[in-house]
């Protein structure tokens, strides 16, 4: 049923959309590809924006997934600075912000997610920043430097990575978190305790359990963050990193099912056989965990792009991958495989005091997830064991004198 000549229109030219175009060509798809993005530049890698790029260790050239000429050379019409404003699934057309109408045989949503905003007074002051795009990163970089004070709203990965980069650039960083621990949404408390101590020892300060009520400025520029208890935190800029919202409005308006993201099956296809969705915008099945979930990660975007490209080009199905994530902060490499759903036991292998340890989340004798700090063997082997469902011996897993190659029960 695949048609290698089909016209594929991809909405969103981020990492997912760019990878989709590339994987379609790798899979032998011959039909025209239209890739539509609302940013002024073609697909690039976002993860370095809070890390290597912010510290000046990576340039725009290395972030770009492809050289600009690649798109035209490969029959891919890259439309930049444009977004889709309407979708008619009956006619199989999308309307663009330019007024143009584009027809499709197959449509792929790769519209990603946008930064969640804080709906408080002063949110539109200059110097109140977010970090999703290269343009956001430019603004953030300009706000950092020796002695500058950055208030970071939200102690998640974006906030912590930026805090580490800010310190490397000689700036002061204060993280303001609503919950009573950092990384509350995304990691276990053992990891939160470790990361907060590591950051504090490197000059990052924290306020936990605080509510922000306003950004206050002078001359249109932020000068301080006001807390609900009345205190004010002086700053030169504030970064809001409090999560992301899927860009699924157009899909919703077109009658596609959305539940915190566009609902897709294991082929990354919606209930409309001619409409796919990939990346951060999807609410996708997790076969290893027997549920649907929305993942925000590059590996997830690449997996779904490859799966969808294979389905469109009529390739044999791929084995579902184990979800994974990473974060670099200071000299720490955090690698996470799996998700801690349904886990009944938490087991720590190694000593956090040495900055080299891993937290395993077990369901009975199976690993559901592993959070590994500076511990590639634990991550790599843990990821394999999550995927192949092999039972492990918790005693051997907790014993660092036993190699990760010998923890199977």
């Amino acid at each position, binding site marked *: 049923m695949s048609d290698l000549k089909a016209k594929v229109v991809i909405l969103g030219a981020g990492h997912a959309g760019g990878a989709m175009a590339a994987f379609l060509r790798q899979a032998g798809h011959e039909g025209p590809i239209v890739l539509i993005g609302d940013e002024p530049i073609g697909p690039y890698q976002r993860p370095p924006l809070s890390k290597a790029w912010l510290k000046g260790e990576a340039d725009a*050239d290395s972030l770009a997934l492809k050289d600009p000429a*690649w798109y035209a050379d490969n029959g891919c019409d890259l439309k930049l600075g444009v977004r889709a404003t309407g979708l008619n699934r009956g006619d199989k057309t999308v309307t663009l912000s330019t007024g143009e109408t584009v027809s499709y045989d197959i449509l792929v949503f790769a519209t990603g997610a946008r930064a969640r905003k804080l709906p408080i007074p002063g949110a539109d002051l200059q110097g109140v920043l977010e970090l999703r795009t290269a343009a956001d990163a430019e603004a953030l970089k300009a706000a950092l430097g020796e002695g500058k004070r950055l208030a970071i709203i939200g102690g998640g990965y974006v906030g912590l990575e930026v805090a580490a980069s800010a310190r490397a650039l000689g700036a002061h960083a204060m993280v303001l978190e609503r919950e009573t621990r950092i990384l509350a949404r995304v990691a276990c408390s053992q990891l939160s305790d470790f990361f907060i101590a590591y950051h504090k020892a490197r000059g990052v300060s924290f306020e936990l359990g605080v509510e922000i009520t306003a950004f206050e400025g002078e001359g249109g520029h932020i000068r301080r963050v006001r807390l609900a208890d009345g205190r004010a935190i002086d700053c030169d800029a504030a970064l809001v990193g409090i999560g992301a919202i899927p860009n699924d409005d157009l899909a919703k308006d077109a009658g596609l099912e959305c539940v915190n993201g566009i609902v897709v099956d294991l082929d990354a296809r919606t209930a409309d056989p001619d409409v796919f969705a990939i990346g951060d915008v999807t609410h996708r099945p997790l076969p290893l965990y027997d549920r649907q979930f929305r993942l925000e990660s590059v*590996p997830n975007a*690449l997996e779904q792009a490859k799966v969808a490209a294979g389905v469109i080009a009529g390739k044999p199905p791929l084995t579902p991958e184990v979800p994974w994530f990473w974060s670099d902060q200071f000299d720490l490499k955090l690698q996470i495989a799996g998700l801690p759903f349904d886990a009944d036991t938490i087991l720590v292998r190694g000593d956090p005091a040495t900055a080299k340890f891993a937290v395993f989340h077990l369901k009975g004798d199976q690993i559901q997830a592993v959070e590994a700090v500076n511990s590639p063997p634990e991550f790599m082997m843990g990821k394999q064991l999550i995927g192949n469902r092999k039972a492990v011996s918790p005693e051997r897993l907790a014993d660092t004198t036993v190699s990760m190659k010998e923890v199977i029960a």
Partner: protein
Amino acid sequence: MAKITYIEHDGTEHSVDVKTGLSVMEGAIKNNVPGIDADCGGACACATCHVYVDAAFEGKTGEKSAMEESMLDFAENVEPNSRLSCQIKVTDELDGLIVRLPESQH
């Protein structure tokens, strides 16, 4: 610029020019060479850019870091000439480099 030849597991060859300063992985991604996924974009966090370096170039691709050694130790189908291509910087000395790709990266 250095000419690099990537040979897929099925023998398909891709000879491309890669700018010096980029990594061997980035050269593959920019030229859409199938078989190198590079999930982590060069952070040495995923081992999905595993390649086998041709014997003639083994001394010229630099030393493996402890992190790379450790990641490779647990990757599939590892050989003595295995490298993570994100950790090999392209230099003029690597002009003519040949790398072969494993059957699978996951």
